């Protein structure tokens, strides 16, 4: 098989890098040139084999662990932070509600102090008698405290 100067152009032909006119010329040449025909078959075989491997990978799972989550917060972290924010909000609403019906002094308190302040708030209403005590409380506070504090205790204050 003699060496043909066009063999090296065939690689560009198979890669789709030659203009249409030259592509036609090269293919026509290869039909009559044993060396080029041989090379062209190999190049096309390689390309076919390479193409058959393409597009079979499963890669969807890679994005979930890729950049956006890596740079931001993970879903579980976001959930925990959200829960913490809701808890803080609930606590602060309760605290403001207590403050709004109290003397307005909303200093730093411990858990124990919170309960004492609650009783102080309750005592302001001076309910007259035992079982009717809760009915005398302001509507918003009645449900909040009467469930845990006996009406008789309130009455005794």
């Amino acid at each position, binding site marked *: 098989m003699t060496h043909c100067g066009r063999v090296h152009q065939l690689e560009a032909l198979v890669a789709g890098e030659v203009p249409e006119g030259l592509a036609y010329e090269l293919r026509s040449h290869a039909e009559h040139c044993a060396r080029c*025909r041989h090379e062209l*078959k190999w190049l096309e*075989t*390689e390309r076919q084999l390479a193409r058959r491997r393409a597009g079979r*990978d499963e890669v969807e799972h*890679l*994005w979930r662990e*890729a*950049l956006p989550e890596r740079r931001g917060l993970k879903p579980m972290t976001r959930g925990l932070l959200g829960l913490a924010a809701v808890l803080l909000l609930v606590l602060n609403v309760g605290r403001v509600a207590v403050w709004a019906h109290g003397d307005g002094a909303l200093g730093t308190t411990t858990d124990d102090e919170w309960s004492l302040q609650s009783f102080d708030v309750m005592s302001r209403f001076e309910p007259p008698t035992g079982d009717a005590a809760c009915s005398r409380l302001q509507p918003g506070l009645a449900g909040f405290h009467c469930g845990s504090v006996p009406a008789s205790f309130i009455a005794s204050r």
Partner: protein
Amino acid sequence: MLRLLQRLEPITPDTPDDALVRRAQKGESAAFKALFERHVVAVRRFARDLLRDAQAADDATQETFTRAHVQLPKLTEAHRVKPWLLGIARNVAFEARRLHVHDELDDDAGVPDAVLPAPNPEAVLLDAELERQFADALTHLSPTRRAALLMRIDHGLSYDDIAAAFGWSIPTVKNEIHRARLALRVRLAPHLGAL
């Protein structure tokens, strides 16, 4: 205002790479995700071909896109994003295997410049076993040569792009790919003889 309108422009499969790169460079995460979706299959396959391990390829792919995201502002030739990504993937894979770019360049043993029987490209399409043989033959190439060959025949990179990715001259790229092809053909020829 023009920038805002550009960012509101929907991303479609026809949106060119360079437009996606420019939008991603301006901080549009959807554009970067589109680049990821467009190139992740090729990057992952390339990494797997170099590392020969699925889990390692997954890790290398993620690392490739992590680095790409960090280095994206430095990418000036936005239309060459695929060669750029494969170049990063090659670096990541070589680091993972503790190889260097110029390792194993001299594996010419057993690569005769001989005339081999011609295969039949149409028959190749019907032969599943040959695909396995092809994958096996690739593993016998040095990582560097394998990377260069696959960049060309699998991922369609130009010699210019491969030369840029490897820091080689174009004649070196052509020589390496030529030798890789010969080695590949020597291994495939026995399986193609009956075709």
